[in-house]
């Protein structure tokens, strides 16, 4: 019960943060830009155009859109949640709640759920927005373009954000706000670089470089989730054509997805454990 009360208050607290609204505003601006670009691109279609290629082009652009959404969502998740533990511990706000008849794990889980709800809304709005926009703009010209596996892709983007959230919580139970933010985004940076190393290595058939990329994904599997999301949303034809900026030469395996889920659960469990043991 206490968990849900805390989740409700946390969701409202998160919904009030300026960072969230800036991320939403950035998302809307991006959608407008994306829509305008797509609109003019589709207007240039002539009866003699190769519709198949056009459809692939629209899908490729859609992937770029998803990439921007993914990046915005990840950064927003970290920035909105980064001070929820450390900030409230420093200000003493948490004392009024932690002395109520609610276990520490319930308190932390409630906060986590509040942010998960916020992330869910954001991902649905952004992924849904860009998909709907693309479909509506393309339906008359080339027949509506949709991602290959939309739900799988959206689910993986969501999972990536929840993973980042859980790691932010784990660090927030120990570290000061700024240190936490730098560390978590730094880890995501490692995953990002690792992802590109892995892609390049796969194209060049360099096993050792590939392993470096995989190790980076094991350190932080966030980017692997994004690359799997692209793999799910891009049509196999597009991948084969190498038409997209997100060639998935090395597709993160199902094992890596499972690893990411375990990583998320471990981060959350360790966050609960650290938070339960520490002095407030």
């Amino acid at each position, binding site marked *: 019960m206490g968990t849900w*009360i805390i989740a409700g208050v946390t969701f409202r*607290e998160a919904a009030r943060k300026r960072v969230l609204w800036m991320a939403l505003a950035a998302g809307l601006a991006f959608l407008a830009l994306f829509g305008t670009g797509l609109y003019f691109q589709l207007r240039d279609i002539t009866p003699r155009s190769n519709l198949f290629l056009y459809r692939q082009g629209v899908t490729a652009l859609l992937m770029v859109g998803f990439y921007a959404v993914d990046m915005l969502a990840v950064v927003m998740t970290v920035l909105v949640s980064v001070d929820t533990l450390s900030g409230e511990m420093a*200000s*003493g*706000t948490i004392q009024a709640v932690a002395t*109520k*008849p609610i276990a520490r794990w319930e308190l932390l889980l409630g906060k986590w759920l509040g942010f998960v709800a916020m992330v869910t809304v954001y991902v649905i709005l952004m992924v849904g927005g860009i998909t709907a926009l693309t479909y509506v703009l393309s339906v008359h010209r080339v027949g509506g373009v949709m991602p290959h596996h939309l739900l799988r892709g959206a689910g993986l983007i969501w999972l990536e954000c929840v993973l980042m959230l859980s790691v932010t919580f784990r660090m927030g139970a120990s570290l000061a706000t700024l240190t936490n933010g730098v560390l978590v985004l730094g880890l995501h940076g490692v995953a990002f670089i690792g992802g590109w190393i892995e892609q390049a290595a796969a194209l060049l058939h360099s096993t050792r470089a590939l392993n470096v990329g995989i190790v980076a994904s094991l350190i932080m599997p966030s980017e692997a989730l994004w690359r799997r999301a692209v793999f799910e949303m891009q049509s196999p034809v597009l991948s084969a054509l190498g038409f997209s900026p997100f060639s998935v030469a090395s597709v993160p395996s199902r094992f890596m997805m499972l690893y990411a889920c375990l990583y998320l659960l471990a981060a959350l469990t360790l966050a609960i454990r650290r938070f339960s*043991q520490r002095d407030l």
Partner: protein
Amino acid sequence: MLPANSNAIETRALRKVYGRKVAVRGLTLEVGRGEVFGFLGPNGAGKTTSIKMLLGLAAPSDGCAQVLGRPAGQVAVRRKIGFLPEHFRFYDWLTARELLSVHGRLYGMSPAALCQRVPAFLDLVGLSEHGDKRLRDFSKGMMQRIGLAQAILNDPELIFLDEPTSGLDPVGRLLVRDIIKTQRERGATVFLNSHFLSEVEITCDRVAFIKHGEVLETRDLHHAGQAVTHVSIRARKLSEQAISGLSSRASAVRLEGERLNFAVANIDALPEIVRFLVGCGADVYEVAPQRSSLEEMFLEIVGTDGGL
């Protein structure tokens, strides 16, 4: 169910160490049910850390603490306690009414109970007219008031008040005093940590003086007989015999002109002393017992170095 016949608070050699710094050296304390207990000590004496350990906010490094008959910090114990932190803060976008509602729900109150209790407690702390105002528009004093309301919202058996009057004007202080009084009448135990000694003197039954995280002494404020009383007598014709005889009955005997000052361990010894002086031929004009104030007690027990 919590054991009802136990002490409200019982600690044995409670200790808290942060790295190499000893915050609480060994706190041994007993607070009975229904007492208003003052916790006094200089800055850095370990008062807030002690309260944190009793509330389960901080884990003791050693020793043990029982609150309402159970190990400190258990969820079942927290159901029966209230706490006003030294600087009460909460999400500032909530209104006063919403704040009490959130805290009430955390105590497991039903919507019906909340409908009845929230306005009643807003009224109790004098914030009825500000119930729909957001906390960000509250003054420091108003925040202390709403903090006090959330601390007693669940009719707790034990209430911890950490500097409840800091930031309050005289009217606010009077309110705190009244609330403590009503809580005592209700049978609740109040653990009061305050710098305002005059306030502690008025409200508390018993006080503990702590320094470096150890109880130096506890004093009962209602049984003045137990405390050392300073007496000033104005008399003439005081003989050598009277003065020396007095020295065996009282301490710190000092004669300054017509004024004879001394201290007795028990106020009940005073009539006998007066009879003795009169018997020695002295003319007694005035007898003025001066119970040492809490401030004097504080300085006498804790010292003037402020624990530094």
